[in-house]
């Protein structure tokens, strides 16, 4: 047994030593823990760690196969996301004990705080005392055993799993109900209690999902939505798109769901032109040579940055919204073009990991597919707070797409209409976020960058929080960003346009005199290399493309991504539909599209008189509309429409170059 003294070691040093002991198979004793956070995070070896005192937040979190014994209390999120192994707390535990459990056992001998077992998916969370408010909130599976009383709203919005309460239940949560014990339930509980030397001689009440909420009974009629307003002769207000919307709501009686992003005109990069005549690009067919496009993202605190061959990333999109085949094609295209791929929600696939040279692993509120082992093989990790298409909402995946394979990787029941929570269980403010960020960095030994994915809302404040909390980079997503499924109300009406987002971000960082060390990656309606250069001139360090990549890879933009029967095999989990997708061909198409972006970026950079794309600036841009001039502060020069036409010419040139 190795003794580590936390009054002498900081937590990073201690965790490195704990992992070293893990590799040697030696148990560890922690003295003077004094409720410090993130003890043992990232341990993936089957050793025992004894904490002589109290632990802070995330004790034993993001671990696999390890055993933790905490003599006294634990702070928030004891045993966060463990896969196997156990975390035993001798005293009381704070809020969200056993959050996001994927297996293993968390035992709290005393009382446990609010929202215990939130979004847990498997394993057992057992509490010897009382459970506070909302035990089992949004749980997807597994078992919670509470020997004492349970406070209000037990099992609030649970999708599956079982909660056994030995004491009084103050009230049930919405969509939870009391059910009869099944044969074997009590024997299984008794066996568990015996193993931990816990005694109980009463009866249990069993709580399970009532399954009445979160189901769509009536489907929308199948049709191809009208992407934009079509002005009728008599009226441009009650136009056919508006009428159609009203008819369909009259039929289904609820909000409508579709894929893609806002389909209304908003100020965008088309309203911006280059201040100089860039028509000389025509002579620059070979422009890629001699122009530096290389871009590093995420080295703010000494982690190994993403090293991109050009300032382009592939936007986060989930295996779930998209088929396995498309994720493989995207990963391959990212490798061929020397850029990064992103897992999005829903976990990392082996083939995706193998195909992509640089892979960003995204953590969302539901922690679907999130786990320490994939974190440790990622090239960057990213906390998703929200996305441009639907700020403030969690992901939605309609039942048709929740196949057995997909459910297994996410750890959820097959065939539910899956809602991810709208917020993280353990991030309820910038203050909690700091501790969560530390946990993630501890789990990967501070080796890889930690980014933030954020939909554009109150960007000016949020970007300051991101900077002060210490993110390495921020992916900022405007209103035009797309999604696999969201309500049209949110798609069309929530968020701010991408150009407003970049401007607010730049202004916010300037206001606090931030150094240039947290990179801004902008996304939301970036359709080509011309947009990318404009965005970088506005202050972005890099752009991210999702929809454009998918369209390059075969999407026909029918906006029915949520239905699950994508005719080209992209937004589907149906094997028959997916079989239509030709991975090899589409990966090449996407790769060629990225190469066309490369050429466009290089050619414009050269035409603007630079040899490095990172030297473009606001001085290179003018606004073509007063509205965009107002948003961006760029000079309003309507006469530059001629140059805007030169931009259009570039699109045709890119074909020539490709």
């Amino acid at each position, binding site marked *: 047994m190795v003794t580590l003294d936390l*009054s002498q070691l900081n937590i990073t040093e201690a965790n490195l030593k704990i992992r070293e002991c893990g590799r040697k198979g030696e148990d560890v004793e922690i*003295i*003077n823990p*004094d*409720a*410090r*956070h993130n003890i043992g995070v990232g341990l993936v070896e089957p050793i025992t760690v004894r904490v*002589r*005192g*109290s632990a*802070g*937040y995330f004790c034993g979190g993001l671990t696999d196969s390890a055993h933790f014994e905490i*003599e*006294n*209390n634990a*702070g*928030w999120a004891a045993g966060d996301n463990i896969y196997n192994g156990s975390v035993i707390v001798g*005293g*009381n535990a*704070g*809020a969200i004990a056993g959050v996001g459990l994927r297996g293993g056992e968390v035992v709290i001998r005393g*009382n446990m*705080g*609010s*929202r215990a077992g939130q979004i847990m998916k498997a394993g057992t969370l057992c509490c010897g005392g009382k459970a*506070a*408010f909302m035990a089992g909130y949004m749980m997807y599976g597994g078992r919670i055993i509470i020997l004492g009383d349970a*406070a209000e709203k037990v099992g609030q919005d649970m999708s599956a799993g079982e909660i056994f309460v030995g004491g009084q239940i103050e009230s049930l949560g919405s969509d939870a109900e009391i059910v009869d014990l099944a044969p074997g339930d009590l024997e299984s509980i008794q066996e568990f209690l015996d193993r931990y030397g816990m005694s109980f001689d009463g009866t249990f009440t069993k709580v399970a999902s009532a399954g009445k909420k979160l189901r769509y009974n009536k489907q929308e009629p199948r049709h191809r939505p009208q992407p934009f307003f079509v002005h009728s002769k008599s009226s441009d207000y009650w136009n056919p798109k508006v009428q159609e919307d009203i008819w369909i709501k009259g039929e289904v009686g609820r909000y409508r769901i579709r894929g893609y992003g806002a389909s209304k005109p908003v100020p965008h990069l088309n309203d911006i032109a280059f201040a100089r005549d860039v028509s000389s690009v025509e002579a620059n067919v070979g422009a890629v040579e001699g122009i530096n496009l290389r871009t590093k993202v995420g080295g703010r605190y000494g982690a190994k940055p993403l090293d991109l061959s050009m300032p382009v990333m592939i936007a986060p999109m989930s295996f779930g919204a998209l088929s396995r085949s498309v994720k493989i094609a995207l990963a391959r295209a990212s490798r061929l073009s020397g850029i990064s791929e992103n897992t999005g929600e829903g976990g990392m696939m082996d083939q995706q990991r193998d195909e992509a040279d640089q892979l960003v692993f995204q953590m969302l509120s539901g922690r679907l597919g999130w786990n320490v082992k994939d974190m440790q093989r990622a090239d960057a990790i990213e906390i998703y707070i929200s996305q441009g298409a639907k700020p403030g909402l969690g992901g939605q995946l309609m039942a048709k797409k929740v196949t057995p394979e997909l459910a297994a990787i996410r750890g959820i029941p097959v065939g539910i209409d899956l809602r991810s929570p709208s917020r993280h269980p353990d991030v*309820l*403010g*910038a*203050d*909690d976020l*700091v*501790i969560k960020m*530390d946990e993630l960095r501890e789990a990967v030994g501070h080796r890889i960058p930690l980014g933030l994915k954020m939909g554009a809302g109150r960007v000016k*404040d949020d970007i*300051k*929080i991101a900077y*002060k*909390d210490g993110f390495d980079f921020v992916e900022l997503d405007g209103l035009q960003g797309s999604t696999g499924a969201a309500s049209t109300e949110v798609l069309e009406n929530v968020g701010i346009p991408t150009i407003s987002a970049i401007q607010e971000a730049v202004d916010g960082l300037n*206001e*606090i005199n931030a150094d240039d060390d947290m990179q801004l990656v902008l996304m939301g309606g970036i359709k080509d290399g011309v947009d990318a250069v404009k965005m970088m001139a506005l202050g972005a360090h890099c752009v991210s493309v999702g929809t454009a990549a998918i369209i390059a890879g075969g999407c026909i933009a029918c906006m029915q991504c949520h239905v699950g029967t994508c005719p080209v095999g992209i937004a589907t989990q149906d094997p028959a539909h997916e079989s239509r997708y030709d991975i090899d061909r589409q990966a090449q198409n996407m790769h060629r599209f990225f190469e066309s972006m490369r050429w466009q970026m290089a050619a414009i950079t050269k035409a603007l008189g630079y040899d490095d794309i990172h030297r473009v600036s606001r001085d290179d841009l003018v606004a073509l509309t007063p509205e965009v001039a107002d948003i961006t502060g760029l000079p309003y020069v309507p006469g530059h429409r001629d140059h805007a036409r030169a931009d259009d010419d570039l699109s045709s040139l890119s074909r020539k170059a490709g």
Partner: protein
Amino acid sequence: MCGIAGILYKQAGSHELGHALIDMLDGCQHRGPDSTGFALYGDRQEHLQLRFIVPTDEAGRDKAIDNIRSLLTKHNASIVEELSVGCSYKISVKFEGDLLDFTKDIEEHAKLVSVGHTLDIIKDDGTAHQVDDTYHVSEFKGSHGIGHVRLATESAVRPEAAHPFWATGFEDIAIVHNGQLTNYWKMRRRLQRRGFTFHTDNDSELVAVYLADKLAQGNTLEQALQTAIEDMDGTFSFLVSTPTEIGFAKDHLAAKPMVLLETDDLIAVASEEVSLNRLFPGQAINSTEPAPGTYQTWSL
């Protein structure tokens, strides 16, 4: 975007209050690195104690202090003692009029942050230890106090936006708050109609004014906290202190953390146990987490 801490010693007398709060706030400084503040309660002073935030450049400071002096003259208040330190100007004054009118007028023309016979609010940019270096908080002996660390999102980190907040118009009352009120504007308009003025857009200032108003109407601190939980919408954990009490209130959703420790000698409350543990290094402490939607007070 904050961390909070409070402590009350059960035995009357002078305790190492400053030290204790610095330790606790240093323990949760990760929750708010931009500014740190203290509301400290010591022996009752003969004269009214006022602390102002003034500019740190000499010219600006002289001008602000001249202005404060003329305001005091206008209200027949005379300075007995004065101290200019850091970004603050502290005075004790002889004053015999109506405190509410007096402070209301002064607050319109100067940045008054602390008023009372037992209370001193010290707040500035920087960490707990940095604030201590300037203001010598660690030398403060007293009976109880509360403190706060803050992450700012406004353009410049301004000391007057730091916590604790003094309850406008009512001496010796202070609050610290962690969280966000979502019905801020609605409640602010309600209090403005009752004659209160607001000097920041900070929702924590509203908590202070709300409680002061309730206390002025004759409610006990407990009653004020009880109605606060019903009236305030959003996520919050806050601490309040009066000359003889400290109390907390916690929202219905338990969205902001708070842990509590009671020993034979003291009551300590903080955002995180790591702060409480600073009072007892190397020992396991027997803390509890208050339930959602609850409040509690303790008296000296």
